[in-house]
């Protein structure tokens, strides 16, 4: 007789069977999986709607087993607002890159956060424009070379990279704002907890929630997938500290 076999970890049900178009070793895939695992664990697959951005994750709707809409560049938070206001019973999340959220969509994200819209934002910060071929993003590090900053980001003309989690956590409206990373199993586990917490606040109808996730872009960084993880640790982590910047509970205490 065959022994009992327990599956301890496998592809989450909320991920579709499709093979992603992401480059080998791109950590967009890890973040997708974390979101899908969260959806499974919270049992919300059948009442979740996602909003895909413009960026490498433009086809995110092909990879999740949940209803989806495809936004214009940067406008996902406005779409999520419209949807969630009419369907407060559904769980809504946007999945956005740094060009999408911190550049062209800066207005939408700040105001959605400030209105306290009750959806969850997964913000993927890879310090570059991936899809369009590695141009400078608002999150590109000082001195970082990109196709539009061939000599490295010049902070005298481009300014310093924007720390979105910090910026958003300066808003008064209660929210859950955290930053995580996925370049190491330990941090992936932490990222998962933060993502789960973000969705849990939404399920409790508590507040706006956003998790910024530091991610790699091996292709446009010009590094191998494993070296990219090291690059993230060495360069991005010091500039973008990980942590939980704001919880709705803080706001209650501060009052």
């Amino acid at each position, binding site marked *: 007789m065959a*022994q*009992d*076999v*327990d*599956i*301890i*970890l*496998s*592809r*989450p049900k909320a*991920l579709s069977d499709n*093979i*992603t178009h*992401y*480059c*080998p*070793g*791109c*950590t*967009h*895939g*890890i973040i997708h*999986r974390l979101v*899908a695992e969260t959806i499974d664990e919270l049992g919300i697959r059948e009442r979740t709607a996602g909003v895909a951005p413009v960026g490498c994750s433009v086809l995110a709707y092909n990879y999740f087993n949940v209803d989806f809409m495809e936004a214009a560049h940067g406008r996902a938070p406005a779409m999520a607002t419209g949807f969630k206001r009419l369907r407060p019973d559904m769980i809504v999340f946007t999945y956005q890159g740094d060009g999408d959220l911190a550049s062209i969509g800066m207005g939408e994200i700040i105001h959605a956060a400030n209105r306290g819209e009750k959806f969850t934002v997964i913000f993927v910060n890879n310090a570059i424009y991936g899809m369009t071929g590695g141009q400078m993003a608002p999150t590109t590090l000082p001195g970082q070379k990109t196709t539009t900053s061939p000599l490295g980001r010049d902070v005298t003309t481009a300014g310093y990279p924007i720390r979105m989690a910090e910026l958003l956590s300066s808003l008064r409206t209660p929210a859950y704002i955290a930053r995580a990373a996925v370049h190491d*199993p330990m941090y*992936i*586990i932490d990222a*998962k907890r933060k993502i789960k917490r973000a969705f849990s606040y939404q399920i409790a109808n508590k507040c706006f929630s956003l998790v910024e996730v530091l991610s790699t872009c091996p292709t446009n960084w010009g590094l*191998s*997938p*494993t070296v990219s*993880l090291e690059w993230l640790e060495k360069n991005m982590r010091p500039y973008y500290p990980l942590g939980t910047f704001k919880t709705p509970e803080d706001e209650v205490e501060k009052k």
Partner: protein
Amino acid sequence: MPGIIIDKLYCKGCELCVHACPMQIISMSKEINQKGYFYATVYEPSRCIGCRICAITCPDAAIEVKAHGTHFTLFKY
């Protein structure tokens, strides 16, 4: 006894699992899959401790972790 199954169809040969496995028992195959990638394989399955780190790291959700009988998890995921 724990063990992993790598679905070579999903594997893109990025080697992240190879570096992540604390037991260093994953390596890249000499063969390519349908997509043309050298996929990951476990070459010493008996030493697997079922820690799940490979599956947690894999960007393509290509790895499944299984266990026969009693299994202790080292951390919550």
